[in-house]
C-alpha cells in the first residue's frame, strides 16, 4: 500500500521535474531579449486598456458551488458503490438500492431546486429570478 502511494508521489515529482528540466535546460539555449513591446499584453494589436484584473462577473461561481455539492457526493458514494455487488450477493439488495437511491434522490432534488431558480443558465437576465442575492 505504501509502495503504491510512493509511486504516486514519485510520478508527481517526475512530472514536475520534467517540466522543470525542460525549462531549465532551455534557459541556456533560448534567447532572452526583453522589449516593452514584447512584454505588453495581447489585445488584438491594440494597446491594452487598463489591467486584466477588473471586476469580473463570475458566472461560474454558482456552478462551482453546485459542483462541490455533487463532487463531495461522488466521493461519498464511490465507496458505497464498491460494496453494492457484495450486498446483493449476500441478499441485502434492498438495503443497497434504497440507500443509494435515497442519496441520489436528495441530490436530484437539489439539482431541481438550482435548476428551478435558474442558476444553471449561463445567460441571465439582470432582473430575472436568478439574481436575487
Amino acid at each position: 500500500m505504501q509502495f503504491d502511494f510512493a509511486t504516486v508521489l514519485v510520478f508527481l515529482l517526475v512530472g514536475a521535474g520534467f517540466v522543470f528540466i525542460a525549462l531549465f535546460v532551455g534557459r541556456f539555449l533560448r534567447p532572452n531579449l526583453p522589449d516593452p513591446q514584447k512584454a505588453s499584453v495581447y489585445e488584438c494589436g491594440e494597446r491594452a486598456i487598463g489591467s486584466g484584473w477588473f471586476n469580473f462577473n463570475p458566472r461560474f461561481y454558482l456552478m462551482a458551488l453546485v459542483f462541490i455539492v455533487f463532487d463531495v457526493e461522488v466521493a461519498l458514494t464511490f465507496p458505497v458503490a464498491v460494496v453494492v455487488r457484495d450486498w446483493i450477493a449476500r441478499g441485502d439488495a434492498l438495503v443497497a438500492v434504497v440507500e443509494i437511491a435515497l442519496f441520489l434522490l436528495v441530490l436530484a432534488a437539489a439539482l431541481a431546486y438550482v435548476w428551478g431558480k435558474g442558476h444553471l443558465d449561463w445567460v441571465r437576465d439582470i432582473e430575472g429570478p436568478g439574481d436575487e442575492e
Partner: protein
Amino acid sequence: MNVVQHAADRFMRWAFSVDPATWPHAWIVYAGFILLAAVLAVGFVALFAGPVTWLERRVAGRIMSRIGPNRVGPQGVLQWLADGIKCFLKEDLVPEGADRTLFRIAPYFVFGGMFGAFVVLPFGVHLVAADLNVGLLYILAVTSLVVVGLLMAGWASNSKWALFGGVRSAAQLVSYEIPSAFSLMAVILFAGTMSMQGVVAAQGGWPWDWFLFRNPFLFAAFFLYFTAAIAEGNRTPFDLPEAESELVAGYNVEYSGMRYLFFMFAEWANLWIMSAVATVCFLGGWQIPGVSPAEVAAAEGLAFVGWQALSFLVFAAKASALILVVVQLRWTVPRLRIDQLMFTCWKYLVPLSFVCILGVLALMVVVREGGTVDMILRAALLIFGFWAVVEYARRIRRTYLADKALYERMEGKAMWYPPYRMP
C-alpha cells in the same frame, strides 16, 4: 502485489542475494525502480503526444481537403519534433504586469495533474505502475489539478482574453466532471471495485463480455462518459476555453515557447487518458480474446513477455480507435456556445447519468446474471452496437465517395494518391 515492487524484489534477490523484507537499503532500489517506471511513462507521454499532433493535423487536412504538414521527414511524420525543438528554442516571455510566480508555475500543475493519471492506467496484463485500490477515484481527483493550473494561467496573465478563457475552462471542467464521475460510478457499481485492473478483470476478451454490452445503462454511460471526457479535454465541440475564433487562444494566450508547449502537451496526452479510461471501463481493457488472465499469469519466460506485448497491442488498438473517433469529431462537429455548453451538461448529462446509476442498480437487483433476460439484453445490445459500427463506417465511405466523385468531375484528376505518394 505491486508489479514494480515485485520486479524490484526479484532484482534484489538476484543482484545482491538479500531478502528485500529485512534489507535496510531496499528503499533505494525501490525508489530507483519507481523512478524508472515514471521515466518510462514520461517517455510514453512524449512519444504519444508528439506524433498524435501530426496525425491529427494530417486527418484535419484530409477532412478539410488540404494537405497538412508534409515537409519534415517522410509524409511529415517528424513535424512534431520540429515543432518541439522550435518551441524549446523560443524566448520565454512573461507579460508586463503579470503575476510572475503564478504565471511560471501554472504549467507544472497542468502537466503534473495530467501525468499523475498515468500511475494507475493499465497498459497490459502487468503493465501498470501502481494498481491503486481507489484507481478511478484517484484519476478523477488528480486530473482536477489541471483546472487549478488553467485558472492560475488565466488569472496570472493579467490579460482579458486569458481571464475569459480561464474562467470558462474552470466552469466547463468542473461541470463536466460530474457526468463523467457519475458514469464511472455506474461502472464501479457493476464491477464492484475501483481498481483499474479489477475493472478489467471483471470483463472478458470478447465483445459480449465487455461492460459496454453487459447492461443497457452501461451502454448509455459509455456515451455519457465519452461526451463528458471530450469536454474535460477541451476538444472541439467543447473547446470554448481556447475558442480560436472568439478568444484567440484563451488561458494560454500570453504563453510562449516551452511553457506554452506544456499546455498543449497536457491536452494531447489527455487524449490518451480519456481513451484509456473508456477502454478500461467499457471496452474490456487489455483482455485478449480467447485467452484467460489465469493463462497469462501462468506463463513464464518468453511466453510471458509475448502475452504482455499482445495485451498491450490489444489495449493500444482499442484506445487508438477511440482517439481516431475523437480526432474525427473535432473536425466535423461545430463548436457549441458557452450557454449551450452549460445547458448540455447540467440539464441533460447530469440527470441522464443519475438515471444510468439507478438503472444499473435496478437491473443488477432484478435481472439474474447469466439468466435468459440478461442474455437477451446482451444479445440485443451487441447487435445494436455492431450495427452502429457498420453504419458509421458506411456513412464515412459514402461521404468519401461523394467527395471524390465531385473532385474528379471538377479537376479532371484523381483526388487521393496512393499512401506512399501522398503530397
